[in-house]
């Protein structure tokens, strides 16, 4: 049997389609990147062990509570009694809404409890206490 000797085998990787591949990656990252909508308040989140991920970013609304007792939703400061109005609006716009409470670890429970009550009045019952992962 006679084998044909292949001598004209080119050994370099074709680079003509490289820009296409890179562009595809680029478009993927551009589409998936979600720029942070609101800057919120500076808070030191508490740490916890048994934490879970929030299901979806689109169905999440954040409330920031600073250690001075300021409450911020969508970068506007609110009194505790006014939370129910905005949360009620958001809740009726999105029935799957989860509220993520980003409260400072030194904030007081009277304020947190007030927010609980407001959320109950707004019927936004799914709540998530934003925490960091404890190291142990």
């Amino acid at each position, binding site marked *: 049997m006679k084998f044909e000797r292949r001598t004209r085998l080119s050994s370099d990787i074709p*680079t003509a389609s*490289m*820009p296409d591949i*890179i*562009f595809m*990656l*680029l478009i993927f*990252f*551009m589409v*998936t*990147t979600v720029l*942070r909508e609101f800057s919120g308040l500076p808070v030191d989140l*508490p*740490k*916890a*062990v*048994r*934490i*879970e*991920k*929030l299901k979806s*970013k689109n169905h*999440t609304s954040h409330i920031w*509570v600073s250690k001075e007792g300021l409450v911020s939703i969508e970068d506007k400061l609110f009194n505790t009694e006014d939370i129910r109005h905005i949360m009620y609006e958001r809740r009726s716009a999105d029935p799957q809404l*989860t509220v*993520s*409470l980003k*409260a*400072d*670890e*030194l*904030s*007081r*429970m*009277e304020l*947190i*409890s007030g927010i*609980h*009550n407001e*959320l*109950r*009045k707004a*019927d936004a*019952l*799914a*709540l*998530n*206490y*934003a*925490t*960091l*992962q*404890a190291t142990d």
Partner: protein
Amino acid sequence: MAKKKRRFKGGEIPTASMADIAFLLLIFFLVTTTIDMDKGLGIVLPAEGEQVEVSSKNILNCLINSTGQVLLGKDPVKISDISQVVRQKLQENDKLIISVKSHEKTKYKDYIAVIDQLKTANATRISIAETQL
């Protein structure tokens, strides 16, 4: 003046550097993308006006005072021991509802630590009572 006649050779954009430009953009987006998934302790608040009568033997009161000390039932417990105690009590009575009640001046940190401990003990029925002075 003699003018050189320039032959039009067909206009072409040089594409050799296209990959480099795309790479640069790609790296920019890679660097600026922050995949910060929100994480935390999930809880479902009771609906407004929803009151359920529960027999007192199925309730375990968990009181947190303003300095972060915890009273579980009738005994003071260290925060780090709550999960053990609660797990034991849940084994004895699986209908147990843990009612977390805190003082107005309790730090959020202590409250989260207690909720975390209850979650560690796989307590699913957690009720949050209003704060008290």
